[in-house]
């Protein structure tokens, strides 16, 4: 036991002595957590629109005005033919073209449905999709206004009205949604990189040679490595949670204890992955590459940027092995929805099993003798 304490003391001494690593561990994640959610914004603004007006009526001018008033759209031009609008789209100066037919006003007055064409540049699929949806909303509102104005008796309009309520994130605030996920990613990165590099470093510098001839056991040696990073990981996580609260006002709906319990188990799992990488690598460079490869997959297939539900089936199967997916999920469940320990029990079980497997293989793979 006292040997382990000395190993821990030595490890902490080395960590605190390396100012750059310390700064990388503490300041970089904090900085990234502040900046990244601002950049990772799925809201689409500044959609460039061109109106093709064949009607030249009061109604068509009012519709054009209501589009230019919206903060989502920039009205680039009003042109007389669809051909010139398509040329603008080919030149990438507009994202969406809206064609108003020559009988627009007349049909509106008669209470018929005029036919409007929306053409979107789908090179940027997301912008095209969201742009047409938003434009659809504008058109819907415009037609509602016209209809009510036309019915002088003030009768309620008929038909179906769809009203959407967004539960757990009523304002559809992307930051509330992104921050817990980004925090999960940052913690994973720190844990994997540090544990993978640290042990390989001992091998690369040769210090492991001197450690190997001492009577300490490999379990002691590994525990001496993982415990400091586990503690530091939780410290970084706490800083992140605090920043999320102060900067983005993200206050967990669920229990803090549940979050920390999961984070604690999760850290053991990802530290185990780092350890496994370190037992396979011979140099820090190799360890870095291997960690980077895993992180790439974890990030892209973690459900933060692409919803797992919209991935193809084979990709969804792969994400089952991605620990980050579970952590992001749990963070969102507990922070946004207020899920309890009981609700996340499956996630916790999966992560715990992964932890046992990864650490087990790593310990078996790490040899004091070769």
């Amino acid at each position, binding site marked *: 036991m*006292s*040997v382990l304490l*000395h*190993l821990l003391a*030595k490890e902490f*001494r*080395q960590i605190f*002595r*390396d100012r750059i690593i310390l700064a990388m561990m503490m300041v970089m994640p904090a900085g990234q957590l502040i900046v990244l959610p601002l950049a990772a914004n799925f809201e689409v603004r500044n959609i460039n629109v061109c109106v093709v007006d064949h009607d030249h009526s009061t109604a068509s001018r009012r519709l054009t005005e209501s589009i230019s008033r919206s903060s989502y759209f920039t009205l680039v031009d009003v042109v007389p033919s669809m051909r010139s609008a398509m040329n603008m789209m080919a030149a990438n100066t507009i994202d969406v073209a809206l064609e108003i037919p020559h009988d627009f006003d007349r049909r509106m007055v008669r209470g018929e449905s005029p036919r409007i064409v929306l053409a979107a540049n789908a090179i940027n699929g997301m912008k095209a999709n969201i742009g047409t949806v938003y434009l659809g909303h504008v058109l819907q509102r415009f037609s509602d206004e016209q209809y009510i104005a036309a019915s002088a008796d003030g009768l309620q309009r008929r038909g179906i009205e769809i009203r959407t309520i967004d539960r757990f994130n009523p304002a559809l605030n992307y930051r509330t949604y992104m921050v817990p996920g980004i925090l999960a990613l940052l913690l994973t990165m720190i844990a994997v990189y540090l544990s993978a590099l640290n042990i390989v470093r001992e091998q690369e*510098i*040769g*210090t*492991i*040679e*001197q*450690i*190997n*001839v*001492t*009577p*300490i056991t490999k379990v002691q040696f590994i525990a001496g490595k993982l415990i400091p990073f586990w503690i530091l990981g939780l410290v970084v996580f706490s800083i992140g949670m605090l920043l999320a609260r102060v900067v983005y006002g993200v206050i967990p709906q669920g229990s803090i204890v549940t979050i920390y319990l999961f984070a604690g188990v999760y850290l053991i799992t990802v530290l185990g992955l780092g350890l496994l990488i370190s037992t396979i690598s011979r140099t820090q460079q190799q360890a870095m590459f291997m960690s980077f490869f895993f992180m790439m997959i974890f990030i892209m297939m973690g459900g933060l940027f692409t919803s797992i539900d919209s991935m193809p089936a084979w990709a969804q199967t792969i994400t089952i092995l991605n620990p980050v997916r579970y952590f992001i999920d749990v963070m969102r469940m507990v922070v946004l929805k207020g899920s309890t320990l009981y609700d996340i029990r499956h996630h916790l079980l999966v992560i715990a099993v992964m932890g046992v497997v990864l650490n087990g293989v790593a310990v078996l793979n790490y040899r*004091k*003798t*070769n």
Partner: protein
Amino acid sequence: MVSVRGISKRYGAVQAVADVHFDVARGELFGLIGPDGAGKTSLLRIITTVLLADDGAASVDGHDVVRDYRTIRSMVGYMPGRFSLYQDLSVQENLDFFATLFGTTVEENYDLIRDIYVQLEPFKQRRAGNLSGGMKQKLALCCALIHSPTLLVLDEPTTGVDPVSRKEFWAMLRRFKEQGITTIVSTPYMDEARLCDRIALMQHGRIMQTATPDEIVAGFTTALFAARSANMYALHLDLLAHRNVESCYTFGEYLHVTLIDSSQGAVQTLSDNLLQRHPEFELISMEPTVEDCFIRMTNGVS
């Protein structure tokens, strides 16, 4: 104390150690002499339990290096050829750390390291990475001695060390011997062989001979000459071409020569022949060194 029986180790296509046998007696200062790549480090790592042999058995004080590796690790002090202490920890921190790993303290074994430690003391707050080469080596030796080992294994401790420090270092090894510590030391420097009680000459993973330095030199049965001239290169070629020359190799500022017929008449003939082409030709009789023996054995092998 140490017994090595038929140890072999192969790395892919390279046979690093091939069927090596030797014994080291208690309290002996044993030298493993051979050029780089002879297999010295592999052999030492097998004895210190950090490398597994492919074949053969080795034991330290009756403990098998594979089965009883934990016992051996607590009784062996190993100093690897490459500086392997924590460069970002201070001298004092390194010493304390390795002492605790062995369940001891610096104070407990202070007597053993005192001579070296007093030289390190002025720098004890300095980080190990910022020490000079000689000081690093002393610190490494301190750390290897900190748990009062019964067997000290030093892998090329004097490589890259200046001649004065080398001399000091060997004097230190003699003192450990007086304290009853068994030492195995490897070195590529043949001149250091003389300072060992017994040596094993190693080449291409094999031990060519194990004996005391005197015995090894005594095994050099033929007469040895040192030759010199103004044009050493031409002399070397001329000697090799001479029918009476058995071997000729560069040795410091001389060429060492052995003859097929070393009788006085034959030596005189050789001198006369060479004086015709080399007016400054000089041939003197030499006492063989361990290096001469090593070269002779190597030639015999190849």
